[in-house]
């Protein structure tokens, strides 16, 4: 069991699930017809099929939970030692509706800190996380301080560097940079035809406070598999992993995503 790879099984069951979802409308029509027909045999058959499908969903959910448990327990060798040094900067994108679950965000940050990430960027489109930032930092620091009081006093405890962004840090920041570069390069009478470069853009973004590091890995929590407007300038080579809804987040899934990233080799166009 410890060496068994659940991935092909889960992949197969997800394929079956997608087939079932595709038949949604037709299934609904069949259900209505059976109910109206009054045929007890058909009704019983329908119930049996419903039971089988429910068992399928249950098994899929169980396998996900089991996989996460196995990873969390450290039974799978490959997930036991996680090398986070390759993830110098981690971005976490959260759907704004889900970002209101502050306790879930805090739990996620605790996990990230426990895994060893020192530089984390939280993002949501509407700026919900910006409002929670102070509370989140306070919670994390107070937990750290209470651990310090009971642990080795000589151990230096460093807090996580937490950057929190929203839509205004992305596209609007680029528009602001355009203004600055216009004044610097174009409105000056000296230069006939200045050559604006990507480095100029990067430097200008840094000057006005929007020059954070490019994330190596981005975890997206929410229903949609998009990065929801995360600052475009910073995600050239960022690995993007969709983690599903925040309410269903699992430590095992987080570890698995990070482990997968550590196995990746980037060519950078070569």
């Amino acid at each position, binding site marked *: 069991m410890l060496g068994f790879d659940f991935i092909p099984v889960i992949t197969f069951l997800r394929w079956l699930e*997608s087939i079932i*979802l*595709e038949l949604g409308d037709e299934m609904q029509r069949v259900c209505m017809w059976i109910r109206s027909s009054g045929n007890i045999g058909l009704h019983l058959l329908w119930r049996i099929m419903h039971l089988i499908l429910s068992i399928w969903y249950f098994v899929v959910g169980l396998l996900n939970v089991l996989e996460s448990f196995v990873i969390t327990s450290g039974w799978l060798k490959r997930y036991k030692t996680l090398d986070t040094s390759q993830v110098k900067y981690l971005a976490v994108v959260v*759907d704004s509706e889900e970002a209101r679950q502050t306790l879930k965000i805090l739990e996620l940050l605790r996990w990230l800190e426990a895994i060893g990430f020192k530089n984390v960027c939280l993002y949501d*489109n*509407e700026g919900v996380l910006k409002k929670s930032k102070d509370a989140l930092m306070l919670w994390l620091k107070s937990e750290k301080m209470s651990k310090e009081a009971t642990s080795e006093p000589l151990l230096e405890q460093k807090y996580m560097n937490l950057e929190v962004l929203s*839509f205004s840090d*992305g*596209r*609007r920041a*680029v*528009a602001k*940079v*355009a*203004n600055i*570069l*216009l004044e610097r*390069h*174009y*409105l000056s009478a000296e230069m006939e035809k200045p050559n*604006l*470069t*990507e480095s*100029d*853009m990067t430097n200008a973004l840094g000057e006005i406070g929007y020059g954070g590091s490019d994330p190596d890995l981005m975890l997206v929590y*929410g*229903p*949609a*598999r*998009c*990065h*929801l*407007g*995360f600052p*475009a*300038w910073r*995600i*050239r*080579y*960022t*690995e*993007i*992993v*969709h983690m599903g809804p925040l309410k269903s987040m699992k430590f095992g899934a987080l570890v698995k995503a990070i482990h997968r990233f550590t196995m*990746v080799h*980037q060519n*950078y*166009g*070569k």
Partner: protein
Amino acid sequence: MPHGASKHWAQQSRIRHEPTGSNPNSNLSKLNLKPELMPKHVTVIMDGNRRWAKSRGLPVHLGHRAGGQAMTQLALNCMKFGVQVVTVFAFSRENWVRPKEEVDFLMNVFEDVLKLDLKELILQKDMRLSVVGNRSQLPESLQNLASSSEELAKSNRGMRLILALNYSGRYDITQATKNIAAKVRNGVLQVEDINESLIEQHLKTNRIEFPNPDLLIRTNGELRVSNFMLWQLAYTELLFVDKLFPDFNEADLIDALAAFQRRQRCYGGHKY
């Protein structure tokens, strides 16, 4: 190169057309695809040509040749399913670091695809064509061919294929900023006019009906956008598939479109 390999691939260079007269909507319903949920703009990062060739013991350049054919077939399939804009990431500004021989061969593949396959789609399928990226670094023959192909397709009204050659997302944003700044300097625009909408209007995708992709497909199992359409992909559904691009066929496209239709779309509260 194995004997007969080039002949094999020459025989493969045919676009597979559907029989004429078939009803597109009935075809879609047979495939469980809803026309009203079809993504208007699909973009594809065509990754995996070299791995495809290596896995078959073939030289890398044959992988690119197969990729070129797969790209043309992809365009045709998208046309069939009612996608209105398709953007393909053919060559990145970062790809110049590859061996010169490979880069030269790629440029030849692009010329062949433009001269033959895409020309056929322009003339017979009413396809429109745009080439985006920094053309000045491309071979002159390819630059001329790109321009003449766009000119040939100018009056067409069908699906638009955007070929991203020597393109990068950061370059796109930088050029847009540069163009806006020049317009302000020349009095065409005011400084107060500069905002994110104005930048979007000056990107390379500014002249098309649906500038922001609804769906991005990247082959070869990589989970990143590699400096492609950075601005435009803010609310694009990202679909990363393991298949290598030359193997990405009609069935895979159908799966991708079906997956898109099943997913919840997110627009971030912004209008397109």
